């Protein structure tokens, strides 16, 4: 494993604003958000529908632009990067996991996972060993030559996770990764993400509305009306205890319905 500087800042967002629409009909979605994520943190972002969670994730993940404010990832100001530079940046530094997997139907599991490093100058042998490592961790080695339509939702999402991790990104963004999964597949995916986070020190930022999912995180940030409402740290608490704490905050926040534990 690489040497990890726990506590070093990976992502720093300062006073982020995001407005949609034109002047007369403007919709202020993010109203000044400050967020710092350190190396090997597992951050959950929660909040009721319309609180701006996904918008925040998109802005942090360079998929969308901020209206105001700066985002630094590994000390690079992403709002100042050109489109080409952004592409390169995403390819080298970021990984993504989405609710609907976004795998390429025409590619096998292995081809999907290796896609992000297809343009890098990595040797085939190194790529192969990296793939084997990750596929073993995610328990999808046996599926290498299967196509997405031949495997289950949980397996698809683990494939997507493999694709997000193959190039050893600085940070992985996950948007409702368990949203389309049944509870068993969801918990097995979260176990894997926790394992990857703890063993490999991968930094994860995950948006979810599911308190079970967020109970896997080391920190949960609550959004309300485009602002940070509160934050919870797991510390040494058990997952169950952390889950209860999250439920309490959510009860105060209201808005979103809760899927039981």
């Amino acid at each position, binding site marked *: 494993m690489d040497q990890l500087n726990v506590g070093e800042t990976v992502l720093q967002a300062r006073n982020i604003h995001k407005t949609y629409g034109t002047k007369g009909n403007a919709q202020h979605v993010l109203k000044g958000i400050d967020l710092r994520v350190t190396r090997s943190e597992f951050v959950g972002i929660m909040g009721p529908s319309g609180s701006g969670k996904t918008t925040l994730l998109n802005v942090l993940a360079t998929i969308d632009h901020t209206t105001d404010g700066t985002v630094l990832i590994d000390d690079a100001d992403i709002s100042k990067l050109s489109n*080409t530079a952004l*592409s390169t940046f995403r390819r080298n530094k970021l990984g993504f996991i989405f609710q609907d997997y976004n795998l390429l139907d025409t590619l096998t599991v292995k081809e999907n996972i290796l*896609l992000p490093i297809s*343009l890098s100058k990595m040797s085939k042998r190194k790529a192969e060993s990296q793939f084997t490592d990750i596929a073993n961790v995610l328990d999808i080695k046996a599926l290498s030559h299967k196509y997405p339509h031949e495997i289950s939702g949980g397996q698809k999402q683990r494939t997507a996770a493999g694709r997000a991790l193959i190039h050893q990104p600085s940070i992985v963004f996950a948007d409702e990764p368990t949203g389309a999964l049944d509870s068993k597949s969801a918990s097995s995916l979260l176990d894997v993400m926790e394992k990857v986070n703890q063993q490999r020190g991968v930094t994860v930022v995950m948006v979810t509305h599911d308190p079970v999912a967020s109970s896997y995180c080391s920190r949960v940030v609550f959004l309300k009306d485009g602002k940070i409402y509160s934050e919870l740290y797991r510390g040494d608490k058990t997952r169950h205890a952390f889950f209860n704490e999250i439920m309490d905050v959510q009860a105060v926040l209201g808005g979103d319905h809760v899927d039981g534990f």
Partner: protein
Amino acid sequence: MLTVFELALRSMRQNVKHYYLYFFALIFSMSLYFVFASLQHDQAVQNMTHTSVAFFQIAGVMLIVIVGIFTVSANGIFLRRRSREIGLYQLIGLSKGWVVRFLLIENILLGLGALLVAIICGALVSRLFVLILLNLLGLEGIVGISFSVQAAFKTLMVYLLIIGVTSIQMMLMVYRSTLLNLFQADKRPDLSAPPKAVASAIFALLGLTLIGYGYELSGHIDKELFPNALLMLGSIIVGTYLLFHVTMRWCFYRFRKRKDGHLGLTNSLSIAPLMHHTKANANSLALITLLSAMTITLISMAYSFYYSVEQETRRDLPYDFMFENDQQEALSFKMELEKEGIDVNHHVVQAVLTTGIILDPNDESYRFEESLLWLPAEHLKQTGADLNVPPDGVAILYNAGASLAGDLDEHSKRYPTEIVLEQHGQTVMYTLRTLRERNIMNLNAPGSQLLVSEATMDKIAEQMAGTPDYKKIHFDTYQVPDKEELAIASSLYEKYDNDEPLKYDYYAQYKKVLELTGLLIFIAAFLGLVFLISTGSILYFKQMTEAEQEKQSFKTLRQLGFDVDMIMKGIIRKQIIVFLLPLSIAILHSIFAIKAASFMIRSDTMLPAFIVIAIYTVIYFVFALFTIGYYRNIVKKAMS
């Protein structure tokens, strides 16, 4: 509450915008058919060409077939594209019967709209086509403006046929597919099992072998023409089908397996989606290859005929006018020409006709006596003929019909040989050095034309004088250098020629053949244009649909950090495979087919074939560029 009819109208209004290309395709095929039918029934065309009826009928059937193939392919693509919508109707509780009714109403209305536009467009451009045709035939006619009711009626019939076929296709599609495959139409590959190693390898090789066999056959097709032509056609068609269905799939599969997951972005965007739609792609690529090969061959042959009319006619009739042993008429013709102020070159050629035997070195027993026309090279040279005087005692045979008679085959070793002349039991031999594929005297001159020096001819005249078939012939030859004057001269010549059933006046013959081949090239080019635009559009439609289906992939790739240029590299590779593969195979096919068919034509087919292939390729690439442009837009939109 919306009725089915209203809903159909509404959805159609959107579809016209969305599926403008399908609508355009319908308009295009029907208006071309209308133009074609208008031409067929045009009075000017019907009066001027006598063989036109058969040509037009065959071409009309071909046109209907291609229009049918085209609309069925286009409809298939659009049904697949709308499979989600069709599934959705059923999901909200509408019956299959309702969905079929809805689709049929929409199809009929869309078709009717297209029919109306097609007839209007067709009526506007059909005059233009008549002009082109008359121009090609070298005729000057008055182009009247008339609307052909007959053509409109025929087009209506074609419309009914198209609607009938596409409606059956829609019904089959709705009744046969389950909801699940309507919704997952794009997710699943159409052939998921990997090819069986041994069987695939055998069939892959069989495809190549069949094509090779067909090519080999094309080299000697003129022997036993009919069975060989059928065999060649059959083996090339089956071979092409296997090539795309098995060989291509097998190669892709092997290639991908060797990559073992390390496919790379470019291949992921080219080979992977091609393999995902293997079956559909193989079908359309094979169809396009065969149609293209057919088109190129057809137009090349027609163009070769048209292109060589002047040359071919000259081979048969080296002199504009010729009189044989009729100096009185020759003189009066010359006087008439001079009266009209026509500039004419008049030369006299004194020849000798005998009988004799041309020996066949391959067949000792061959002793067939025939008429031999001995022509003195010195006289012919004076007329401006391009030839050399052979040495004394040596003759050269000239026969414009040699290759048609199968006499020109280099392997026959028929020449050089000897000519045997018999006179009062005494035998004289002359050397026949070689055979040239043209005439040195007009076709209607008697006997086989032999070129000798004047001295040799005089010797033969001396020896043979008094034999029963011996004859001295006085030829009066005329050349009119000016083309316009030649036309007038030709009409003056008519009255000297009236006891002959066939015309041996160069200009009249030239005009006759020009008309025929002009009609041929016109019809071939017309069909070719329809074929080309149809095949191009089928490819364009297919790629458009695939582009729409791949939108989500482009969004995903953007998130993975790939930019437009990187993605376009993969897409261009895919288009190169999709467009270039069928085109290059089609060109190869057509080169062999032209070679096989070129026994019908004495002049060179290379240059016309090359021109046709070049033009075809250029138009074809316009479609490829359009497709790439469309893709680029989709990618850019998906990625912004």
